[in-house]
C-alpha cells in the first residue's frame, strides 16, 4: 500500500468520524433540558413572549429536531457553522479568532515537553540507577499526579503575587502594543506561565517514556556494536539511540492531542489566555449550542489531524512499518 492510498483511506475515515461527531453532538445537545432562547432572553435582560417567539423563529428552533439536524449538516457542509446565540456573531469567526491562541499554547507546551522530557530521559537512562535517574523518576511522577489547575493556581499565586515577575493574564501587552520582534518577545513572556503549567504534565510523561526506551535501545545489539567500534558516547546517544527512542514519544504526542487540548482549556481559564478554553467554558455555561457544537467539531478535527500527522511521521522515522500493518 502506498503512502498516498493510505493517506486517502485515513482521510475518508476521518470524514466519517467527523460526520458521526456532528450527529452525536447534535442529538446529545438537543436531548438535554434547557432552552437556548431562555439564555438569549436572559442575556438581553429578560424578554416578552413575543420577543421569545421571534427569537425562536429566527434561530430555526421552531422546526422539528430532525429538520434542524439536516439544516445544520447542510450548512456545515457549506462551511456555515451558524450564528452564536451568546456572542451574537457567526460561529466560524469566533473560532477563527480563538483557535490560533490555543494552538500556539498547545504547540509551545508540546515542544517544551518533548525537548525537556527527552533530554531528562536520555540523561537519566545513561545511569539507570544513578541519583539523577531517581530524581527524574520522582519528578515525572509528581508532574503527572499534580492536578494541572492546581499547579496553575499555585504558580499564579507565586509569580503573580508573592514574587511578581511574570504576567499572569492575557497574551500580550495591549496598552503598549509592540510590533515585530518586541511583540514576539512580549507574547513569549506572557506565554511562560501557561506553557510551563501545561508542559509540566507532559514533561513528566515524556521523560519517563524516553528513559524507558533509551535503556532499551542502549542495551540493544547495534548500540553495542557502535560502542565497540569506538564511537564517542555522545555520537552513540544522539545519532543512533535517540532516533529510536523518539519513536514512542512521537506516537504518544500525536495520541495525546485530545488531552493536551483539554489541558489547554483548564490552563486558559486560569491565565485568561484568549483561546478556545474560555469559549468552551462560556458556550457550555450559556448553552450556546452552535458555538458548543462547532468547538467540539473543531477539537475533533484537530485530534484527527494530529493523529494522521503522527502516523505519517511515524512511517517516516520507523521504516519497519512502512509496509502497512492493516
Amino acid at each position, binding site marked *: 500500500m502506498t503512502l498516498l492510498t493510505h493517506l486517502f483511506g485515513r482521510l475518508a475515515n476521518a470524514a466519517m468520524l467527523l460526520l458521526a461527531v456532528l450527529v452525536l453532538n447534535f442529538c446529545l445537545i438537543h436531548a438535554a433540558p434547557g432552552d437556548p432562547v431562555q439564555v438569549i432572553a436572559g442575556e438581553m435582560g429578560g424578554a416578552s413572549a413575543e420577543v421569545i417567539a421571534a427569537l425562536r423563529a429566527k434561530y430555526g428552533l421552531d422546526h422539528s429536531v430532525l429538520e434542524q439536524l439536516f439544516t445544520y449538516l447542510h450548512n456545515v457542509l457549506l462551511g456555515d457553522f451558524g450564528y452564536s446565540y451568546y456572542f451574537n456573531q457567526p460561529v466560524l469567526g469566533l473560532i477563527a479568532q480563538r483557535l490560533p491562541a490555543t494552538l500556539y499554547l498547545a504547540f509551545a507546551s508540546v515542544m517544551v515537553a518533548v525537548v525537556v522530557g527527552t533530554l531528562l530521559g536520555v540523561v537519566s537512562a545513561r545511569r539507570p540507577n544513578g541519583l539523577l535517574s531517581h530524581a527524574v523518576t520522582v519528578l515525572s511522577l509528581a508532574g503527572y499526579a499534580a492536578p494541572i489547575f492546581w499547579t496553575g493556581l499555585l504558580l499564579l499565586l507565586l509569580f503573580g503575587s508573592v514574587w511578581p515577575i511574570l504576567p499572569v493574564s492575557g497574551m500580550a501587552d495591549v496598552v503598549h502594543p509592540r510590533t515585530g520582534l518586541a511583540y514576539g518577545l512580549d507574547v513569549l513572556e506572557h506565554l511562560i506561565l501557561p506553557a510551563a503549567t501545561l508542559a509540566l504534565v507532559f514533561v513528566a510523561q515524556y521523560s519517563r517514556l524516553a528513559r524507558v526506551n533509551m535503556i532499551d535501545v542502549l542495551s540493544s545489539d547495534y548500540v553495542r556494536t557502535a560502542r565497540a567500534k569506538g564511537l564517542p558516547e555522545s555520537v552513540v546517544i544522539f545519532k543512533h539511540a535517540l532516533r529510536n527512542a523518539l519513536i*514512542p514519544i512521537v506516537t504518544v504526542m500525536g495520541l495525546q492531542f485530545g488531552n493536551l487540548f483539554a489541558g489547554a482549556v483548564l490552563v486558559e481559564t486560569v491565565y485568561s489566555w484568549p483561546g478556545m478554553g474560555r469559549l468552551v467554558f462560556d458556550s457550555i455555561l450559556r448553552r450556546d449550542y452552535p458555538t458548543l457544537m462547532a468547538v467540539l467539531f473543531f477539537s*475533533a478535527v484537530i485530534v484527527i489531524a494530529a493523529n494522521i500527522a503522527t502516523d505519517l511521521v511515524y512511517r517516516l522515522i520507523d521504516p519497519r512499518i512502512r509496509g502497512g500493518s492493516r
Partner: protein
Amino acid sequence: MSTVEQTLIVPRTEASNVKTAANAAAPGTTTMRVQPVARALSPARAALRQFLRSPSGVAGAILLLALILATIFGPMLYPIDPLEIVGLPFSPPDADALLGTDYLGRDVLAGLIHGGRATMTVGAVAALITIVIGVSVGALSGFFGGWIDSLLVKISEFFQVLPPLLFAMVLVTLFGPRLTTITIAIGAVSWTSAARLTRAEFMRLRDLDFIKASRAAGAGNWHLIMRVVLPNALPPIIVSATLAIGVAILFEGGLSFLGLGDPNTMSWGLMIGQNRNYVLDAWWAVTFPGAAIFLAVLAVSLVGDGINDAVNPRLRRR
C-alpha cells in the same frame, strides 16, 4: 487500523506498555514477547513477592492504604460536618480549625476527611466503569475479529477523537452536576485505552497454541474468553485499572474546577473549584485539597508501576 492507534492513550500506561502494545498489534514485525502460557508456580504469589521488592511500589501501597483508612475511619474520629459552618469565613489555620476555614466558614480539615470519601469513591467507581466497558469492548473485538472488531474499533475511534475532558464537561452539563452523573461521565469518556489494551492482548493470545488446544477440546467462546484468555490478559488490565483511578480523580477535580461539581457532596475537587477564586487570600482552602489529590494520584501511580514491574518480567530490570 494503524499501529499508532493501537498504542495507549492513558498517560501513565503508555510509558510502560507502549512497546507491549506495539508488539501485539503488529505481530511478526518485531520480536514476540515471551509470555508464560499458564504461569507456573502460583504467579500471583510470585508477582506479590516481586512487588514487595519495589520500594516505590510499597511506598505507594502504604500511602494508598493510609488514605483509604483515613477516608473510612476519619469521619468517625473527626465528626465535624464538612458542609456545616463552624467559624468565621477565611480563618487561617489555627488551633480551632487546624487547616483553616473556607469562604463560608466551613472546616477545611473536615472537608478533606469527609470529601476524600466522595473523591475516592468517584475514582474507584469511574475506574470500574472504564474497565468494564473497555475490557468488554476490547475482549469482543480482539477475540472475534472480523466485522465485530471493525465495528467496535470504529466506535472507540469515535470516542477517541473528542477530547475526553471536553466530552465529560458536555455530559455533566447536559445531565446535571450530581456525583452519579459525574462518575458515569468520567467512565464513559475514558474507556478507549483499556479497550485498545485488552484488544491487543486478546489478539495476541487467541492464536497461541494453548488456546487453539482448548478450542479443539470443545470449549465454547464464552468459556474461552472468561476462563482462558482473560486470566492471561489480566496483568496489564490490572495495571491499567489502577492508573484509571488516578485519571478519574484528576477528572473529578478538573470538572469541579470548572464549576461542574456537585455542591451537595463535599469532595476534594469541589473544594478546589469552590475556593479557587479566593486563592490569593485563603491559600489553605485550595492548597490542601490539591495536595490531597496529588497524594492520592501519586499513590495509585506508584502502586500501578509496582504491579506493572511485578507482573511484567521483561520490564523488571528498569
